[in-house]
């Protein structure tokens, strides 16, 4: 197990990047921060698969690839299936002794956007989780189909305007709540499920290492602010992530073996959801008097969720 040191940033920075620049993700995109961190937190060989989405179309623009590891892309929905297929093949060939280097540790990782994780690839992901392969699935949650022009996905939170749930005189944006994917994945009985954010690099790197080390299917939902569709300045990516974790819109926590919940980050000063929303253009309409009740509704929801997480952590069930 070749886990690299993440004691502090200086030590972490001695790692050699395995995710190359000159991909075509937007300037300030959080996707590449997350992917880079995963690739840097281990020295093991990686087999990576990606669902169709921003990450896939931007890092494999023919004739270029930004990946310094084995990387497979097949369809929109089946990164989980592709990588578990590779995992089974690796296991079988290891048993037969037909690999070039039989002892080299290999980790299997699948990336998906929120569209391909929450909606389109859900069945494939659920199947792979149930079959219990040894792989890690990382969802880059930017709360819409950013690659195709910002359509609503089931990860889009209530009140956000997207290109298919447009806010206007008769609508306040998306009317449905966000799917709680972390609980759904924990309910699959996965040994390690977590929600992490790139602004807390250490808890994220720790979570990634834990997921890679854990045998069995692991799922990590990462917050990935999208400057294009959330409508904020690219330079504020980390600032917006700070707001999202401090307002508890994205609490950072892990669930072990489907029940043991640990909160990994408790904000010292919890800010209001309103502050988080006011920083983004996609919630602009909620500050009109007729839609203001939505903010209160979301605040209530977030408070309840946080109370629930704390009680679950205390109860240790």
């Amino acid at each position, binding site marked *: 197990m070749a886990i690299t040191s993440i004691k502090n940033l200086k030590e972490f920075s001695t790692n050699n990047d*395995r995710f190359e620049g*000159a991909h075509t993700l937007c300037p300030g995109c959080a996707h590449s921060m997350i992917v880079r961190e995963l690739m840097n937190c281990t*020295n093991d060989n990686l087999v990576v698969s990606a669902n169709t989405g921003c990450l896939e179309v931007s890092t494999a623009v023919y004739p270029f690839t930004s990946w310094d590891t084995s990387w497979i892309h097949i369809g929109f929905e089946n990164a989980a299936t592709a990588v578990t297929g590779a995992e089974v093949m690796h296991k079988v060939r290891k048993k037969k002794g037909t690999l070039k280097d039989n002892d080299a540790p290999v980790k299997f990782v699948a990336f998906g956007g929120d569209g391909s994780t929450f909606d389109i690839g859900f069945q494939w992901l659920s199947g792979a989780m149930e079959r219990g392969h040894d792989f890690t699935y990382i969802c880059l949650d930017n709360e819409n189909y950013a690659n195709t022009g910002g359509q609503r996905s089931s990860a889009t939170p209530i009140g956000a305007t997207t290109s298919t749930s447009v806010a206007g005189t008769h609508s306040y944006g998306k009317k449905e709540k966000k799917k709680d994917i972390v609980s759904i994945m924990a309910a699959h009985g996965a040994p390690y499920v977590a929600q992490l954010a790139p602004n807390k690099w250490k808890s994220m790197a720790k979570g990634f290492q834990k997921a890679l080390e854990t045998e069995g299917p692991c799922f990590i939902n990462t917050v990935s602010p999208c400057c294009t569709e959330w409508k904020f300045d690219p330079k504020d990516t980390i600032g917006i992530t700070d707001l999202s974790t401090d307002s508890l819109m994205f609490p950072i926590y892990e669930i072990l073996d489907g029940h043991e919940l640990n909160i990994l980050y408790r904000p010292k000063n919890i800010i209001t959801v309103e502050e988080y929303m006011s920083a983004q253009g996609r919630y602009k309409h909620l500050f009109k008097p007729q839609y203001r009740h939505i903010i209160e509704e979301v605040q209530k929801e977030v408070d309840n969720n946080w109370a629930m997480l704390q009680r679950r952590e205390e109860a240790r069930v």
Partner: protein
Amino acid sequence: MQDLKLLANDNRGLSQLEAGFDLLGWDEVTQGSVLPSFEGDASNIANLKAEERTYSGYNSYTATVASWRVIKPVFNRDICIDCQNCWVWCPDSSILSRDKQMLGIDYDHCKGCEVCVEVCPTNPKSLLMFNEHADLEESLASWPEKKKKEKKSEEA
């Protein structure tokens, strides 16, 4: 039209492609393709620094997105404390850091998103954005002075 062609040549390493690559047209490509990231053995890549690797022409490391940039970050070695915040949050792997030391910026891969400037904790910041065509010496000469902390008890 000639200007357009020049632009295309500067764009994303297309000049290298013209130099020696034999590419298939879009209608000749069969389903599935394999792009090797490296020449030769790639089993020890995690332990090699970028300058020790043998990148193939398919690796985007050999390409450039410098034309995306309007403003560029300039690095001031005198103020930097090597905290590596810029390294961990750079989305384009373009902060050059070796042996726990920040060395500079890879201007071929930097898209000028300004995230590094935002996360820089020093006072004044050791990374600042300047116009793409600004001269390095002039930029460093025009670096702002250390800001004094504002007194908190002003209101009282």
